[in-house]
């Protein structure tokens, strides 16, 4: 079960749980008894993302007060959080006076996933079965809503553990439920930006659980999926107003819908910053349209297009193209881009407002992280958003030549060759 979760997700979901548990009395019996390790990892994630890129924390005492207030990292747990992060190598040179932490240096990965480190730390702390089940449940909810009966049937979580998870989930508001007329229940995550969760029951009444699972999983891994006829559940969810699907006109003049279900810890995207989220979805819909219905000049790498819009060196402007006026009309109408005439074509240029810049950055994150922006998890605003995805060389499929007697080279021989070819061999 939880062992199937990748390390990255164990770290990520620990932070979700910590964020939820902020609504619960930290001395509550259930939290103390069952969630100690997960909370500590979650607190570490929140702290790590807050100080990432700061290099030196010169006044750790002040930080302790700030994070207690802003991130609910209890002062008594502060030293444990620092010890844990020091153990993972994310911070070092911790200067202590007695038990008081005075200052430290941070070395959080700027281009790699911190959550991978934290997932490993979570494993090392030998968490309880309840904690493991809780993470698994929260992760499942991050993909889709599910029926109560799935707890035992699909997840293999026993009824006693279920009871505790549901009680904690209810207290922390990590798990929301909707009762169906037949007595069954649907659970969903409050972090989904569902437009109207109350009508979720209607969706479950009209489609099989398998169909719902399959289509939500597709959507989770591909935000802005084109709403084609082979996706009846998502089409229905959009038609009923459960989720958003901006539509764009394709080259043949047909309106194409693109479905989204972003999962965000930052509630402001669902409330005060809802306009930013809506703009981000419009941006994504435009590039998805170019990607899927762009004909022979289809967009190959949508992130690149969005990075160009953010790039001051390129004046926040795309090159002119015959379809830009149609494809980016929605962004133009929403005041995200201006159209700069270029002969009979146009060049979309970002209108540099705070909201528009944030919307494009959010759109990039939604593309990269399967609908889960990481920037609302405590990262300071000046932290770089460049996250590296180092490509590995894919081994080409090759024809194997006839076997014959041959001299085989060792790994060391090949490594020496590659080192020489790439400038890593010592030159003398």
């Amino acid at each position, binding site marked *: 079960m939880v062992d199937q979760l990748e390390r990255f997700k164990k770290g990520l979901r620990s932070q979700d749980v910590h964020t939820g548990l902020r609504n619960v009395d930290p001395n509550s019996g259930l939290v103390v008894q069952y969630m100690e390790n997960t909370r500590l990892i979650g607190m570490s994630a929140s702290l790590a993302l807050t100080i990432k*890129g700061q*290099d*030196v924390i*010169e006044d750790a005492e002040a930080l302790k007060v700030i994070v207690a207030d802003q991130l609910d990292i209890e002062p008594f747990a502060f030293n444990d959080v620092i010890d844990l992060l020091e153990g993972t190598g994310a911070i*070092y*040179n911790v*200067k202590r006076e007695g038990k008081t932490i005075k*200052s430290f*240096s941070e*070395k959080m*990965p*700027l*281009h*790699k996933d911190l959550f991978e480190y934290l997932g490993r730390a979570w494993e090392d702390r030998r968490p309880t079965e309840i904690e493991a089940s809780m993470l698994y449940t929260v992760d499942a909810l991050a993909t889709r809503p599910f029926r109560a009966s799935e707890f035992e049937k699909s997840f293999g979580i026993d009824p006693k553990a279920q009871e505790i998870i549901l009680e904690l989930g209810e207290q922390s508001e990590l798990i929301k439920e909707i009762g169906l007329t037949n007595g069954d229940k649907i659970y969903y995550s409050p972090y989904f930006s569902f437009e109207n969760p109350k009508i979720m029951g209607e969706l479950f009444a009209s489609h099989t659980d398998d169909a719902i699972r399959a289509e939500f999983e597709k959507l989770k891994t591909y935000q802005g999926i084109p709403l084609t006829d082979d996706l009846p559940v998502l089409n229905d969810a959009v038609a009923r107003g459960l989720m958003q699907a901006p539509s764009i006109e394709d080259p043949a003049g047909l309106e194409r819908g693109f479905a989204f279900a972003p999962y965000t810890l930052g509630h402001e995207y669902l409330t005060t910053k809802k306009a930013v989220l809506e703009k981000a979805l419009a941006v994504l819909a435009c590039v998805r349209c170019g990607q899927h219905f762009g004909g022979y000049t289809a967009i190959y790498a949508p992130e690149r297009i969005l*990075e160009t819009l*953010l*790039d001051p*060196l390129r004046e926040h402007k795309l090159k002119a193209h015959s379809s830009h006026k149609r494809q980016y009309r929605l962004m133009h109408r929403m005041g995200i881009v201006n159209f700069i005439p270029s002969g009979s074509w146009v060049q979309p240029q970002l209108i540099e407002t705070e909201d528009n810049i944030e919307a494009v950055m959010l759109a990039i994150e939604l593309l990269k992280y399967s609908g889960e922006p990481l920037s609302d998890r405590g990262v300071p605003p000046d932290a*770089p958003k*460049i996250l*590296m995805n*180092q490509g*590995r*060389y894919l*081994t*080409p499929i*090759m024809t*194997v*030549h006839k*076997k014959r007697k*041959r001299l*085989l*080279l060792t*790994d060391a021989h*090949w*490594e020496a*060759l*590659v*080192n020489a*070819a*790439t*400038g*890593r*061999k*010592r*030159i*003398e």
Partner: protein
Amino acid sequence: MSEKDFQLKVSVRKIFWYEGMSTRLNVKLSALVSRDTSKTRAPLEEYTDIDVLGIFFTPDFRLRLKIGDCSTSSRRVPERLFWLEGVKHFFKADECYLVRPYDVSSSSKQLAARLGISLVCGKDLEVLMQIASNESKLRSDSPFLNGSSYQEREHILDGLEEKLEPLQKYRLVYYWLFEPRRNLQQLISFLTDFQSHLRPDNKPHLILFSDYVWLYALTVLQTVEYVAATGISDINRSIRQYLFGGELGLRERESLVKQLEELRHIIEGSQATSAREIFEVLPPYYDDLLELVTRFARKPRASTKALRYAESLNLSDAFLNQSYDLPQELMPIDEVTVKLLNDVAIFVTEASGLNKDFSRKYIELSNQVFTT
């Protein structure tokens, strides 16, 4: 090198330090040459050396180099001026000082003016030194700037075991011979090849390590200079290009490594499996290098001071038997600069597979020296 020449160099170094630069003495300029078949001929030949090198990075990461030629010899000043102009061009320096302790002919002064070389002669040096000393509140007998700490360090490193000779050669010669981009990998390769011989509890080894940290900090700053000039918004791509001398070089290497991988498959067929990733264009420490360069790029005010911090640490009583206090006015302590330098020490240790106590000790010593 005569003692009088050395004292001149020390004086010029002091002026460079006062101007906000980090410094290095006796930088050798050489060329790799082909070996003869008997392998008796040295693989490199030395052109000349730079007496004093001053290095400075502006807050927008532009490298400024200043070189000083110091001699007590009274002969051939015009020839030396022409020579210095050539060295300036070869080393891509921005400014040159020709320093002589006596007055020179007026034709030499005219020539210096035409070539754009600063001629410091006769009492000029004394006056400049006095200004530097007064302004910086540095005592002229401070071991850091009177050269005794430098001499002690070089004496210790001259006495390194013979088997570590290539590491000495690299820091004195090869580092300055290679294009800066190559040092990103070459410095690590040199240390990696001698990791089993280097021990953190051995004082000369630790001193050698500290100089490698200074050298790598310079290399990182040169990388950031390239990144800032070519595309800081896609730092990952810029560093990849820099490593291989541009996009073309990167693609060539990718293609070459792919061919090698295919060759292995052709030779070994399905047996061509490995427990390790071998066919990678980028070095195994690339992710950490990207992190390090990004951190330097994000904090220009702090990172551009890293070389001065490294130099003052390396020549302090933490490593040597010298004791001095740098006045706060000359180098106010910036915790972020110290931290970035520690990051370099950690990176060099981990990328080269050195004993982790190297960076641990380095951080301990920097905590001792840079206390606020």
